[in-house]
């Protein structure tokens, strides 16, 4: 399909116009910025329709040769296959809604056109990421997303915290990119090509070491982008960006890139048990890690960010399980995209109303003033905790089942995660919308304008209805051309038991949260004296501290000492050499004493030595 490129080009062009246009775009910038992803969405839908009705496994388009050096050929090609299709729709669809929402949210910011420019850049990069047919081109989008996230997180750069958070996001992502880049190099060295197709074809013949290496390197990349342990630390700080950014990053785009990468590279993981296990472990750890952090945060966005980590952990877990999990990973990704966007935008709506207050301890009883926000938020809430019938229920349940199919421990971890999710989300609901009102006197919360609530409503609907994708196993079938036939996990107990068990755990989480938070008064200031467990969770389970101790401090020490060594050591050696020559000069010029007799002495001595030398040479 020859219009495929437009999906990327439209938002990219819009971004270019908005970023270069300067003040000229003030009046219409937001409209253009919103129109671009929506247009892409439309093209995406058309393409989707074409793909689902046509016989082809995928739509492709070759644009131009990007890199050509020796055997290294990278064609700039687009691949619209079932997997990409879902992503394109998610990105442009949810992304488009977020754009609409942003019109309202950013209304009072003078730099709104620039904001839309960044958003469009983000969307374009993400689309490139999912549409590329080649790992290197994917990498281009991959880093583009990183750049856009850098710009967006740091959108309010005049705040130091925002600037630092943006930098941190980029740098941590770069660590992941390191793995990604090395993986691509390894592919080139191994297969002589970096296209998906080429790598897939060659995977059958590689040694297990290569396969494991590839798998782990890709995983490292995925960890960076998807904020999986150990590269999770940037995500919570990234909340410094405007809320629509958080929604975009966390729901529809950036963080899902890691899951996309792992599922897209399923053929790599199928060749290596070790890497697969690593993915599962990373997913499991992050799932719990994020959930635990989510329990302790009073900042509504950070609590949601913890939840994102956790949910992405689920997806990773599923992706790591193998053919039994791929489709569910993507399914959860989609539903998560709906409800998490919903939640974030809802949170944004609350913040908007609360004069950008983010501390839940200063909310309470918001439902009374913001009914629409509350209702839509509640939909998202029910979806994320896996309330039966809601989107999250279907997708999470499927993953937990698959996890039990993988191993008991993994299954129990996933199950536990569901319980904790229920706990912290309930806590969030109670602290924000229920309980008594604690907000500051100056705040006059009010319902958000329509331009913000309509997207909320749409997303709420999707959160409720997302489960239809699994109807008749549609999504599994849809993705079959990509992932091959689904393998059904052998479960230790019947599915119904599994489902009930899950529901029980979720219910337990909800009940505990109710017991803890609705029966006691919530302080407007977080209590100081808390259990070590809470402390650890508040400080993100010491992720930053570890980074600080393991990398930043030694790094600073290293650079400082190296600067010193460069000045004193290498440059010192050079200058020292110069000084040595100069000193020698100063010393031996004293030989030139001005006394003619000294000169004569040196001549006589020289003559004697010459004679000695000549004789010695002859004798030698």
């Amino acid at each position, binding site marked *: 399909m020859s219009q495929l490129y437009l999906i990327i080009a439209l938002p990219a062009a819009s971004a270019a116009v908005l970023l270069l246009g300067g003040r000229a775009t003030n009046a219409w910038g937001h409209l253009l910025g919103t129109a671009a992803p929506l247009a892409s969405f439309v093209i995406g839908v058309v393409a989707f329709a074409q793909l689902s009705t046509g016989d082809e496994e995928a739509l492709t388009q070759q644009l131009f040769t990007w890199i050509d050096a020796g055997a290294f050929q990278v064609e700039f090609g687009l691949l619209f296959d079932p997997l990409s299709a879902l992503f394109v729709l998610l990105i442009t669809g949810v992304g488009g809604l977020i754009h609409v929402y942003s019109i309202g949210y950013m209304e009072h910011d003078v730099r709104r056109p620039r904001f839309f420019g960044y958003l469009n850049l983000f969307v374009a990069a993400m689309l490139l990421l999912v549409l590329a047919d080649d790992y290197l081109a994917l990498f281009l989008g991959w880093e583009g997303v990183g750049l856009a996230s850098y710009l967006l997180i740091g959108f309010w750069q005049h705040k130091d915290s925002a600037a630092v958070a943006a930098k941190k996001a980029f740098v941590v992502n770069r660590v992941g990119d390191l793995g990604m880049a090395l993986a691509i190099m390894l592919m080139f060295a191994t297969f002589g090509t970096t296209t998906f197709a080429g790598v897939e074809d060659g995977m059958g013949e590689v040694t297990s070491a290569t396969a494991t290496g590839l798998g782990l390197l890709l995983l490292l990349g995925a960890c960076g982008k998807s904020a999986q342990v150990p590269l999770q630390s940037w995500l919570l700080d990234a909340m410094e960006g405007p809320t629509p950014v958080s929604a975009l990053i966390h729901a529809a785009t950036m963080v899902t890139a890691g899951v996309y990468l792992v599922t897209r590279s399923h053929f790599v993981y199928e060749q290596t048990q070790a890497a697969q296990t690593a993915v599962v472990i990373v997913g499991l750890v992050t799932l719990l890690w994020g959930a635990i952090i989510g329990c302790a945060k009073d900042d509504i966005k950070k609590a949601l960010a913890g939840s994102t980590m956790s949910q992405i952990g689920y997806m990773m877990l599923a992706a790591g399980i193998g053919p039994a999990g791929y489709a569910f990973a993507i399914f959860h990704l989609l539903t998560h995209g709906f409800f998490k966007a919903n939640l974030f935008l809802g949170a944004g709506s609350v913040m908007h109303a609360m004069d950008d207050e983010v501390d839940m301890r200063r909310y309470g009883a918001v439902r009374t003033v913001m009914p629409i926000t509350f209702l839509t938020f509640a939909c998202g809430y029910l979806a994320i905790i896996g309330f039966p019938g809601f989107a999250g229920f279907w997708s999470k349940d499927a993953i937990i089942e698959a996890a039990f199919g993988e191993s008991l421990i993994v299954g129990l971890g996933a199950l536990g995660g569901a319980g904790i999710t229920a706990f912290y989300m309930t806590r969030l609901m109670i602290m924000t919308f229920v309980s008594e009102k604690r907000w500051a006197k100056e705040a006059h919360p009010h319902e958000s304008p329509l331009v913000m609530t309509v997207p909320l409503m749409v997303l709420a609907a999707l959160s409720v209805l997302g489960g239809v994708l699994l109807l008749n196993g549609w999504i599994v079938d849809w993705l079959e051309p990509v992932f091959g036939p689904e393998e059904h996990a052998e479960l230790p107990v019947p599915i119904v038991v599994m489902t009930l068990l899950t529901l029980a755990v979720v219910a337990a989480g909800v009940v505990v949260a109710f017991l803890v938070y609705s029966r006691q008064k919530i302080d407007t200031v977080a209590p100081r004296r808390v259990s070590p467990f809470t402390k650890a969770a508040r400080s993100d389970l010491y992720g930053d501290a570890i980074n600080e101790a393991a990398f930043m401090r030694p790094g600073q020490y290293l650079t400082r000492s190296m600067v010193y060594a460069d000045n004193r050591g290498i440059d010192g050696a050079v200058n020292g050499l110069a000084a040595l020559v100069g000193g020698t000069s100063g010393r031996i010029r004293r030989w*030139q004493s*001005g*006394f003619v*007799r000294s000169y004569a002495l040196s001549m006589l001595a020289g003559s004697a030595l010459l004679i000695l030398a000549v004789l010695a040479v002859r004798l030698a």
Partner: protein
Amino acid sequence: MSVTPFLVLSAILFSVGAVGVLVRRNAIVVFMCVELMLNACNLSFVTFARQHGNLDGQIAAFFVMVVAAAEVVVGLAIIMTIFRTRRSASVDDASLLKY
């Protein structure tokens, strides 16, 4: 008689003259020591002339004398100039130029 003693004598005189140049401060004496060195050379020339049986050596000695005469004139003129300017014939006093 063998030429060797003459040559050794010449070498000794030459060395003594050279040492004299190094240790004496009076420019005129220094110059005399140079003359001694030239004379030592002459002895060698004459001796070698006898050894080789040609007169080139003697002629060389003759030339040396002429040269020495001219050199003495020039040298003493220079030394006198310096002496008149500085009231000193010590070579050590002429050490403005150094390092």
